[in-house]
């Protein structure tokens, strides 16, 4: 069965410090991986995706994610956090039996303190 795990319910970081939001996945075959962000009272917004190619993927708002096949991980990173990055972050993997369906993790709340 395909699944995505986000082991941390919440991540706290000080503004200006680097941040990491963790994601691990379980799929057969090559995964299509995504990160989405949800700001308060808003829908989800696409941040970045990994399909193939370089293991380091760059996305919106200065975020990047590192694909690690041996550790089945796709952690989201940013070198210097902003207070405005505080939001709910979701990792997702495309289901192998569908070109449309995404399987989402449980979400990680990022809190960046001034």
């Amino acid at each position: 069965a395909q699944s995505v795990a986000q082991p941390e319910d919440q991540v706290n970081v000080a503004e200006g410090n680097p941040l990491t939001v963790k994601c691990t996945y379980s799929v057969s075959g090559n995964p299509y991986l995504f990160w989405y962000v949800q700001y308060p009272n808003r829908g989800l917004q696409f941040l970045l995706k990994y399909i193939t190619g370089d293991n380091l993927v760059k996305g919106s708002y200065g975020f990047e994610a590192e694909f690690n096949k041996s550790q089945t991980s796709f952690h989201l990173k940013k070198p210097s956090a902003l207070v405005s990055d505080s939001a709910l972050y979701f990792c997702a993997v495309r289901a192998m039996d569908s070109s449309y369906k995404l399987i989402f993790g449980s979400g990680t709340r990022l809190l960046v303190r001034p």
Partner: protein
Amino acid sequence: DVKVTQSSRYLVKRTGEKVFLECVQDMDHENMFWYRQDPGLGLRLIYFSYDVKMKEKGDIPEGYSVSREKKERFSLILESASTNQTSMYLCASLAGGSDEQYFGPGTRLTVT
């Protein structure tokens, strides 16, 4: 910019009522989705549609139905609302051949 709109931001209904949630997208996307979002559970797919009048069940279709009579509009129907359907409902659309789903702002439904 793709815009996905949902008919209500907040909705309060009574147990047993029939509830309609409407979603409209303005980018001629073939695919549309309904999810529910619950704390600690992430997003779970209820139904999706890949064309007008076409639909497929997602992971949690029980208690829900959908309608897609026009390409731009995808409706979620709760035939008889129950308290366990209190949740945030998110609609999304996706162009054919694309990977990026576009989400609406969500409808927070409370069933009392």
